[in-house]
């Protein structure tokens, strides 16, 4: 199977502090790969490194035959990687419509993309003129995903999209991830809780102290919950 994204030997650091050590990952075409690990394990840093927001000291991140580590940060999304950051990071002072417009501008997508994204999140259609900072938490998360999907990305990076949401919203976000997989979007999903990913992920990679440990199929994880305890520390 073709890989959507291939990361090899990736080292990253914040200033002088090394955070990632020799990360190697393969995101297969059309799969949902989940990164699990404790706080501070380096999951968010890995996503930022893919986006070019944290510079890579060594290693490569291949999207097809392009090495993303060689691109300036603003070229990475144009290559087809969309990012839903932790804590959503909407442009809070801008309206819903403006946030979506920024997503569309990234890869020069038009009205058709906009419509298909808004069809995924009909709630947003009613709130286009509202300032995005005044949306509820769940709506903000939907907008953050909608903004990313406006790129029609090949690879989608989701950083704890269910954090701090009520259960009905979590179900909605999970359902959306499932829908996107059916559309063939390859997704890297960062989560802290296993139960949040069992139903949507294809494979799980455990991250510990800036290194990637085992990568297992989701069936194996369901059969052997002990694995999770070892890396994440809670059941």
């Amino acid at each position, binding site marked *: 199977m073709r890989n959507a994204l291939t990361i090899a030997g990736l080292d990253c650091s914040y200033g002088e502090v090394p955070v990632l050590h020799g990360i190697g990952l393969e995101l297969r075409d059309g799969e949902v790969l989940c990164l699990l690990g404790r706080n501070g394990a380096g999951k968010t840093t890995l996503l930022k490194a893919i986006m070019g927001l944290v510079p890579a000291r060594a290693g490569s991140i291949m999207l097809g035959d392009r090495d993303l580590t060689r691109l300036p940060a603003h*070229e990475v*999304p144009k290559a087809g990687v969309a990012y839903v950051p932790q804590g959503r*990071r909407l*442009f809070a*002072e801008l309206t819903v419509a403006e946030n979506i417009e920024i997503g569309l*501008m990234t890869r020069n997508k038009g009205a058709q993309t906009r419509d298909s994204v808004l069809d995924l999140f009909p709630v947003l259609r009613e709130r286009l003129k509202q300032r995005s900072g005044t949306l509820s938490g769940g709506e903000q998360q939907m907008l953050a995903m909608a903004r990313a999907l406006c790129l029609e990305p090949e690879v989608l990076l989701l950083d704890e999209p269910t954090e701090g949401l009520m259960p009905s919203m979590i179900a909605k976000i999970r359902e959306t991830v499932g829908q996107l997989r059916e559309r063939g979007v390859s997704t890297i999903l960062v989560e802290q809780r296993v139960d949040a990913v069992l139903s949507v992920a294809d494979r799980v990679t455990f991250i510990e102290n800036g290194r990637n440990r085992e990568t297992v199929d989701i069936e194996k994880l369901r059969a052997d919950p002990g694995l999770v305890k070892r890396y994440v520390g809670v059941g």
Partner: protein
Amino acid sequence: MSFGPHLLLATLEGLVTAAVLALTALGLSLVFGVMRVVNVAHGEFFMLGAVLAWAVTTALGGHPAIGFLLALVVSPLIVGGIALVAERLVLRRLNYNPEATIVATIGMLYILQQAALTFYGPEARPVEPPFNYRILLPWFGYSGYKLSIVGASILLMIAAWFVLTKTRIGLVMRATQYDRETAQAFGIPVDRVYAGVFALGAMLAAVAAVLVVPIQQAHYLMGLDPLLLSFIVVIIGGLGSLRGTVVAAVLIGLSDGIISVFFSPTLAKMIATLLVALVLVFRPQGLFGTVAR
């Protein structure tokens, strides 16, 4: 002259001050809002605008209007170019660090000022207004050119509002202002936006200076007052708020005009400074600013 006409005259003078101030302060506010850079050299871009306007009109000769209109285009372009070079050579290399850029722009202030002294000299030189039409009111005549400054400023402010809120460039600028990192994750070349905004800020100061130079004369030290008043306007109005900048500029301009005419210019400056102190104590984000996150 009785009180009524006197007040009218003071108000007109105040409006002219406000018009020039609004443009200058908008430049300062944009640069700080988007880049988080406190540009201490902003007043020197203003000064350069005026000095270059003199140079252009003097070099060209002919009818004053032609020289003036040319200066109105050429002078801001040159000043924008200088600002662009300064941004690339200095601010970018400091990674836009807030403290370091303050020191760096202080350095830029002196370099620009001394360069003007060296190449332009210590004299104050006038630029002829593009037209000399006096509007005759029942009590006094008033310079038509001064009123046209107010008109030009209003047009430019409307244009700025339009660009910021209705165009893609404005959207990109605002997105960069609110979240630099996320803007990059959506393909916005933050680096180039910064360079553009810094140049644009300097150009606004230069335009204001070209407008004012027919009534004020060009001098190498003329940048200090606009810098101070711009800071006052931006603090009172709230950083990054266009509406706040306009309201505060009108407020400061009018009070400056009226108090200067009836009492003294020093009192006007004292009151403006007091106002800043009060705003900083009771409403630090400014009248129209939003609380920083």
